[in-house]
């Protein structure tokens, strides 16, 4: 075995292999940095080259691509609050607030260094683990997967920020939105309003952009500042602070990487829960968690060290069983099939050398990719200084661009606008947006694995040793920090009081009530009642889950109202008219794009924005618009993308004759 290991290492470090890998890494970073593209677009770019290449080299290229996708998307998450892919949702929670504080460089540096460490740790674990992984993967049945999904859902309690019932209501709404589309057990379509677009459900990227990115843009547009609110002077210094942060939290990195690589090995779950689990873990294990969600560096380090490790772990089910553990792994599996490699047991018997080449390429690509990003972090962080009025149209176009790539349907934009409205309302009334997203992401898993485990094992599903172990871990995760805190509090009472969030803030979070709260509560109640009505005729297995989700939402709504009534509400102002005005503008932009075509609308919008809203010179506006044009048309021809065309596009674009 040592021989195989060494010979694979030797192969990884040959010049040709390195060159191909670097091609893969650059492609991966490119599609990672641009939100909405991700692994699939990267594969589409590389496929023509992969074909007919020596499998060893082709694998290098593929591994370069696969390894750096969860690294590159951190740029958009931290700098713009855009969750680039499913692997970077939790990073947004603290990464973007850090950027707002003027600490973008620090956040990026920490993120990339943790990615690097996570990836390498993951690869090291994988080296030994892959040989003995078969029984472990087989030990995870649907029952264990269900309990793990539950673990992800309990993070709602951690992330709901002061008002538990608002959190569960948000989560319930997320579960409902996640249940749109075909029921896994019966194939019946639910809550689709007879709209073709909704038959597949709403894509994750659209929900992520709507709930996180759009509200931030709206706020920044209204405040007309730059992303970095203060601390311009510190921008450059963040680099060394970021590195120090990682070393200070080295055990957190190690633990999260460990969790990441183990959860990654479980097929069917991986990417979607791992960053929430590790984020919750970091939050729970912190002595002072008050800054989480407002810009705590540990909130960046934990998910980032986990998601690269998770990409390594996801290789286990992909290679051993041909069942991809994550979206990226699915892309990788496609690449393997194209090379004529059929995954299976032979990957650890006859093709062990190939497997080790894959693992070590993964480690090396992680080091090179994250290293490259580390170098880029400092200059790119300067972007947060650019006045937002200039950046705003670019980010708006970028979000539209990203959302449309999800399923290339105008429905993507409408859904984006709708979810964006929810996001704006949530943000202005202090409801938990992560809770909504967690509900949405975990809805299919929770439903599917619950049915499957009940059908496979009956009630005994919850008595399986694996299930009991995970349930024990959940309890431990929740109660250990509480007990530890209680002990600490008894020892040094005054320290704890100092660390607690200011009472004023706390009271407002739990007892404040305003017009938007009322609006949201009404909306949620109406949506849940409608959902109950919509699924009334389905088969029991098809309607059980949406019914449950609707009840969770309804009960939470009632609890919020009851709680407020019992403890006394404090009237608060929740100004949102301006924000809703911006959203109206956004819908108009969508409508015009749909009518006259995306490219011309985007260019006219940029030009008009710079001239009349940002009041820049004509020269600047022209150059800016040209830049956007180059980006959109360049992407179109390089990546073979499609944009919505329309009356004006059909006339103008043939003139530029790129199509």
């Amino acid at each position: 075995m040592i021989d195989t290991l060494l010979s694979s290492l030797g192969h990884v470090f040959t010049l040709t292999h390195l060159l191909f890998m670097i091609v893969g890494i650059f492609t991966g970073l490119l599609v990672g940095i641009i939100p909405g593209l991700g692994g699939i677009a990267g594969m589409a770019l590389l496929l023509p080259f992969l074909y007919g290449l020596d499998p060893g080299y082709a694998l290098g290229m593929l591994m370069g691509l696969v390894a750096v996708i969860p690294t590159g998307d951190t740029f958009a998450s931290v700098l713009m609050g855009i969750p680039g892919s499913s692997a970077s949702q939790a990073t947004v929670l603290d990464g973007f607030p850090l950027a707002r504080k003027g600490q973008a460089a620090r956040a990026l540096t920490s993120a990339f260094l943790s990615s690097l460490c996570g990836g390498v740790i993951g690869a090291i674990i994988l080296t030994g683990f892959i040989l003995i992984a078969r029984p472990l993967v087989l030990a995870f049945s649907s029952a264990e997967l269900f309990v793990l999904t539950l673990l992800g859902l309990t993070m709602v309690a951690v992330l709901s920020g002061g008002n538990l019932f608002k959190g569960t209501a948000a989560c319930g709404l997320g579960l409902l939105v996640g249940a749109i589309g075909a029921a896994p057990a019966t194939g019946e379509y639910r809550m689709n309003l007879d709209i073709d677009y909704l038959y597949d459900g709403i894509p994750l990227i659209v929900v992520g952009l709507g709930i996180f990115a759009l509200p931030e843009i709206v706020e920044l547009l209204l405040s007309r500042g730059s992303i970095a609110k203060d601390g311009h002077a510190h921008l450059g210094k963040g680099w060394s602070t970021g590195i120090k942060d990682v070393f200070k939290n080295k055990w957190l990195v190690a633990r999260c990487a460990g969790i990441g690589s183990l959860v990654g090995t479980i097929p069917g779950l991986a990417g979607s829960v791992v960053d929430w689990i590790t984020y919750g873990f970091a939050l729970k294990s912190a002595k002072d968690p008050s800054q989480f969600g407002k810009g705590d560096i540990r909130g960046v380090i934990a998910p980032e060290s986990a998601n690269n490790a998770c990409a390594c772990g996801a290789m286990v089910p992909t290679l051993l069983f041909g069942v991809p553990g994550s979206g990226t792994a699915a892309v990788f599996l496609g690449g393997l099939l194209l090379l004529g490699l059929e995954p299976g047991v032979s990957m650890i018997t006859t093709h062990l050398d190939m497997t080790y080449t894959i693992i070590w390429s993964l480690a090396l690509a992680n080091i090179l990719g994250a290293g490259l990003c580390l170098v880029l972090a400092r200059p790119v962080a300067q972007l947060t200084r650019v006045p937002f009025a200039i950046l705003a149209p670019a980010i708006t176009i970028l979000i539209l661009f990203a959302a449309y790539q999800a399923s290339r349907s105008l429905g993507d934009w409408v859904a984006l606008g709708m979810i964006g409205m929810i996001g704006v309302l949530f943000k202005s009334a202090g409801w938990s947006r992560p809770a909504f997203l967690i509900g949405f992401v975990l809805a299919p898993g929770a439903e599917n694995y619950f049915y499957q485990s009940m059908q496979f094992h009956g009630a005994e599903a919850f008595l399986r040793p694996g299930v009991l172990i995970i349930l024990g871990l959940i309890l431990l995760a929740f109660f250990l920090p509480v007990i530890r805190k209680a002990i600490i509090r008894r020892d040094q009472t005054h320290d704890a009081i100092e660390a607690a969030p200011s009472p004023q803030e706390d009271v407002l979070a739990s007892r404040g009530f305003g017009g938007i709260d009322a609006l949201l509560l009404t909306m949620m109640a109406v949506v849940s009642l409608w959902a109950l009505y919509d699924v009334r005729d389905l088969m029991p297995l098809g309607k059980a889950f949406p019914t449950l989700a609707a009840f969770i939402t309804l009960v939470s709504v009632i609890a919020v109202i009851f709680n407020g009534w019992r403890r006394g509400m404090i009237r608060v102002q929740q100004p949102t008219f301006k924000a809703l005005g911006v959203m109206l503008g956004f819908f108009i932009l969508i409508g015009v794009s749909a009518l006259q075509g995306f490219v011309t609308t985007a260019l006219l919008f940029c030009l008009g924005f710079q001239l009349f809203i940002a009041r820049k010179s004509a020269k600047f506006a022209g150059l800016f618009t040209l830049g956007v044009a180059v980006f959109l048309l360049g992407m179109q021809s390089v990546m073979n993308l499609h944009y919505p065309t329309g009356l004006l596009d059909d006339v103008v674009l043939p003139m530029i004759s790129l199509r």
Partner: protein
Amino acid sequence: MSNTLGLSKHRNLKHRNVKCTSFKRMSLKHSLKTVLACLLPVMGVLPLSSVAHANVEVPDTLTWTVPFGVGGGTDVWARFMSNWVTQDLPGQPTVVIDNVPGGGSITGVNLFSKRADADGDEMIVTSASTQYPAMLRDRRVRYHYADWELILAAPTGGVVYASSSLGQDSDSVLKKLASEEVKFAGQTPTGLEMPVLMAFDMLGFKISPVFGMKSRGEGRLAFERGEVALDFQTTSAYKSNVTPLIEAGQAVPLFSLGMMNEDGHIERDPSFPDLPTFSELYLAQSGHSRNDEAYQIFHKFFASGYAMQKMLLVPKDVDPQLLEQYRQAARTLADDPAFLKEAEQKIGPYKLMVGQKAAAHLQSAMQLSETQHEWVKQWLMERHHIRLQSR
């Protein structure tokens, strides 16, 4: 577009139109003149066009719409085939693969059906998950196979196997399956597993299926975990992942689905010559014949989902001579030893189906009579409690 003269009239028009707009940009004043100047030659060509396709040339770029995501099974198949098909075409055109995923392939095919013109440069790649919704009259389907001509179809086979806990040899397992209820992990009752589920029923197996698997691979994982005792895999996955289980004595192969011969009859799968086919087992039972309603329906879904699983088609109004050139290339390819060698490793050891016969098989497979459709509806309702939401 070097050979404008040789192209059909549609192509010619398109070409001129592009020119028109680029002229416009040069000078707005002369735009009217330019439009006239553009139109005149087109008008001149119109009466000639009936003569013009005496010598139809293959376009230099072919666009294949693949209604699935990059890296999926059908995408990989299309990319593999695109390299070979073009080799046997005059001028060796370039193939551009356009992935339009969504709705389990319905979205992309609907779009193709609406937009594609019959110039012969636009083709569609389909799979079982495109064929089945059309046969089941899914509400979202807005395409008809009758609108297209088949260029080639590629088959795949599959094998049903059981856990050795049910018995050491296939006879004892088959006996047990008739009396004991056994679980089977599937994706959806209306997907690729539908004919397999029908086969279980027709052989009298008592199956309680668990749906919601995301792939056949997940079904196999459930088998390996011991959650289900019966499973089905298509040929390539069976060879790499199930053969080791059989060698280890954990699994027993029961039957293959078989393969369709040129006359449309099911015979033994060339990959598994020692395994009986489902048809053999079914027809061996007393009172069963090929004319049974159930068998006929099974045969249709087997033909469109397995024997002709992946297809390359072109709009039917394409120039007949062009179509003949495409079909000739497919025929040449089907017998090309170099292709066969590489195809065996990458897409399976089956012979391509080409020509008029294949087209006829496709046509008969895709047509479900009213009573047959009603039978499927009833079967789904009674056996799987699924209400088919059809047009």
